[in-house]
């Protein structure tokens, strides 16, 4: 029985991850990226300080104009907000400590077919910006972007230093960043990133479909494999040690499993709890593992459950399960609430119909908001080092701020460990209560 439940958990989780392939296309848009003093949260501060001094020195020798005559302002004040946004977004490279590792890129160009290559072809620097273009793609701050112009040469193209950069433009009163590439003395526009609305509300839309194994996708696959082997081991232990007290991993997982079973599944799902338990458990452990993995510093800093596309798919699964298992009374309560006067029904029906959409929407935003907020606060605390240290020019102040922000970050991370558990719990308890409300038998 346990084996069946556990295999169901992970088939489900694999399905979820399969739908969440479009990690970075759907990050909501953020603007006015300043280019120069963008620290990587996973980098050691001392390495970074030396880097800052280097850029400052070379700046003193005559600025950073590239071949197209666009000077790149490395002296813009450090903006912790945009820097934090950059570090929680999905990337085409995986960075562990100061090293970045290439990931496979898979881009489907409409009319050109699927392109597969490694992001190592971009020859990434410490900021995640590549110094090569490959088949019309460039890497800017960890994210691949396409130059939407057929005349740009295909294959590997060497670009000069500072050739991939962003410009601030104002569209309809809003700040936007536009990534440009300098090649052969000419400026080429790169695609904007897709936003969740598909570009309808003024955001961007890429000219290709992205199936890449990005940082988030890789993390999801890792956590799936981890969970699969963990639960296989535990379920084998139940067979091998039947009738005996649990030991080792089994003893670690069992209380958590029983806690969710007793606190979430049994009270909310009535006598059908066994049917929905695999779904609830897969949601809980998938979200818990991803939340906790995202907390490990210097190790990719994956923000998977803080990516809207991932939480969107998770919430979509909840919505599907709720609406497909809803019985007659569930739909009756939505469309024609029994026991209230007719004029109230007229008001109540649209409200209830909105509730069908708003319930998964809040699930999606709650998980996204909590995890993103936690990651951002830690990034901003680390960014304080560069704010107080004036980007490496004021070393004593940056040392002081480093001590302070280390303490604050550690405090925040301790809170985030609790939040990781609570959010996984809340997601599963709300899913259970929505399902429970949909399958409830009437007693009036």
């Amino acid at each position, binding site marked *: 029985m346990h084996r069946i439940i556990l295999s169901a958990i992970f088939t489900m989780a694999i399905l979820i991850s399969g739908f969440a392939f479009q990690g970075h296309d759907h990050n*909501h848009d953020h603007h006015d990226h300043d280019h120069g003093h963008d620290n990587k949260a996973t980098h050691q501060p001392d390495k970074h300080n030396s880097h800052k001094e280097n850029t400052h020195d070379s700046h003193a020798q005559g600025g950073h104009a590239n071949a197209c005559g666009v000077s790149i302002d490395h002296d813009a004040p450090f903006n912790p907000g945009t820097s934090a946004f950059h570090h929680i977004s999905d990337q085409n490279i995986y960075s562990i400590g100061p090293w970045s590792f290439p990931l496979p890129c898979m881009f489907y160009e409409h009319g050109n077919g699927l392109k597969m290559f490694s992001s190592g072809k971009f020859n990434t620097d410490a900021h995640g910006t590549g110094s090569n273009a490959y088949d019309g793609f460039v890497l800017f701050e960890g994210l691949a972007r396409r130059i939407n112009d057929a005349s740009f040469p295909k294959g590997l193209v060497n670009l000069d230093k500072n050739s991939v950069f962003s410009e601030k433009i104002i569209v309809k009163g809003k700040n936007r960043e536009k990534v440009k590439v300098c090649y052969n003395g000419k400026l080429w526009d790169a695609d904007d990133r897709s936003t969740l609305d598909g570009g309808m*509300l003024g955001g961007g839309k890429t000219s290709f479909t992205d199936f890449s194994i990005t940082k988030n996708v890789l993390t999801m696959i890792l956590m799936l494999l981890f969970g699969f082997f963990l639960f296989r081991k535990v379920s084998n232990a139940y067979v091998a040690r039947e009738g005996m007290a649990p030991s080792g991993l089994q003893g670690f997982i069992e209380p958590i499993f029983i806690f969710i079973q007793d606190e979430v599944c049994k009270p909310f799902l009535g006598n059908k709890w066994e049917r929905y338990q695999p779904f609830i458990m897969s949601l809980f452990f998938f979200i818990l593992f991803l939340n906790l993995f995202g907390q490990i510093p210097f190790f990719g800093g994956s923000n998977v459950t803080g990516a809207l596309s991932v939480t969107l798919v998770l919430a979509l699964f909840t919505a599907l399960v709720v609406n497909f298992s809803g019985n007659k009374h569930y739909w009756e309560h939505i469309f024609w609430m029994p026991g209230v006067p007719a004029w109230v029904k007229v008001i109540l029906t649209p409200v209830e119909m909105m509730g069908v959409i708003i319930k998964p929407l*809040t699930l999606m935003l709650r998980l996204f908001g909590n995890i993103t907020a936690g990651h951002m606060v830690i990034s901003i605390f680390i960014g304080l080092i560069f704010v107080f240290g004036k980007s490496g020019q004021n070393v004593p102040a940056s040392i002081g701020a480093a001590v302070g922000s280390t303490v604050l970050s550690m405090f925040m991370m301790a809170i985030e460990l609790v939040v990781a558990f609570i959010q996984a719990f809340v997601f599963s*308890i709300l899913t259970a209560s929505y399902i429970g409300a949909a399958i409830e038998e009437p007693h009036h």
Partner: protein
Amino acid sequence: MTGTLAAIGAGLAVLGAGIGIGNIGSKAMEAIARQPEAVGDIRSNMILMAALIEGAALIAIILSFFG
């Protein structure tokens, strides 16, 4: 200017959620003090209610980013 208004909106949303979750917390503490044996039920219901309030606040905050 939009940035400032959005920040005020986010602040107001957090204010409302803070009052709401604070009420839940205080009442839950009172309930636990009165009936310590019901602590499990009260805790999970407290988290559930706090999550529902938080959902409304988060929608407001995220809409304030887009606005």
